[in-house]
């Protein structure tokens, strides 16, 4: 993928629209990992922590809020992997606190899609099965 500059103004605008709810969820997550087993992808990838729902939203939406959209290319790739390759957005993840995990991953997807970052199926390694 070619180097891509994110339009931080637009990213910030999209982040700002949902800031109160999302920052609240990010702040309330106790980093307890109890949501892990509720994700079928976590279970089917040898319990790899990178497939844990909380890992995925912390390292996508969480990063976007923390860095206010100013992120490096490798972070863009990491976010892309977390929200597309490692999540099917099946909405089955379960957090005992009621944190709405799918809504966080969905917002990260919308933001990244607005920046032209989304899975392209002709791209090498776009899917783990293509490796």
């Amino acid at each position, binding site marked *: 993928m070619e180097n891509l500059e994110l339009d931080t103004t637009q990213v910030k605008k999209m982040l700002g629209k949902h800031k109160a709810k999302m920052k609240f969820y990010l702040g309330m997550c106790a980093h307890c990992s109890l949501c*892990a087993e509720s994700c079928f992808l976590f279970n089917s990838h040898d319990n790899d922590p990178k497939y844990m729902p909380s890992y995925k939203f912390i390292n996508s939406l969480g990063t976007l809020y923390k860095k206010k959209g100013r992120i490096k290319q490798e972070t863009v790739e990491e976010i892309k992997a977390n929200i597309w390759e490692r999540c099917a957005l099946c909405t089955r993840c379960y957090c005992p606190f009621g944190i709405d995990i799918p809504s966080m991953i969905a917002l990260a997807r919308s933001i990244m899609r607005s920046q032209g970052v989304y899975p392209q199926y002709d791209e090498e390694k776009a899917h783990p099965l293509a490796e």
Partner: protein
Amino acid sequence: MQILNFLTPDILYDLARGPFVWASFVVFIAGCLIRTIRILSLTKKWEPTWNIPKPDKKDLSKIKKCPLARIKLSVFGTSPVTMVISVVFHLLIFVIPLFLLGHNILLQEETGISLFSFSQGATNVLTLIFLFCALFFFLRRILLARMRAISTCYDYIIFFIAIAPFLTGILAFYQPFNNYQTMIILHMLSGELMLIAIPFTKIFHMVFFFMGRFMLVGQHTLGRGTRTW
């Protein structure tokens, strides 16, 4: 540092026992109220836009008959040990300070009212159980790869803020280092720090848990839920 010279242990003791306690209670209660009101103002009343059929009575009785099956599907089924320890930890974090003899004597002195108290021996056992649960969480955080993957310094700080009052409390009681006054001052200060930290940190999940699971409508709401973001 000279400015701090007046802070002799006796003065610090009096401050921690008096004004600091009231100040931290005010911050704790006001902070929790403000944050709760903020969530209420950020959410609106939810009316289902479609008709949710009332569950079949027969189905309900089936669920009631096999609560075990429901529990197995929850985090109690996937992480039973962690969950049992977590429930004990969270119950004790309220029970120990509320029903501690020493706290109730102070409360009686200050306000004329007091709650039921456990004997000192019982409280000591409960505190040791609490610290054992805390040790379990600590080991879980440093040993499990999945916990390390999402743990930050902040998690450890919050953890120590939460257990410090208990640790210093038990050390003040048993006095293994013969330093009752230092420990009791640290105990009071750490308890006050915890109270102040509750509304402003992750510990606010103490309140948010009930809002997140019972009030906000979502995939896993317990009951119907009444509000949405």
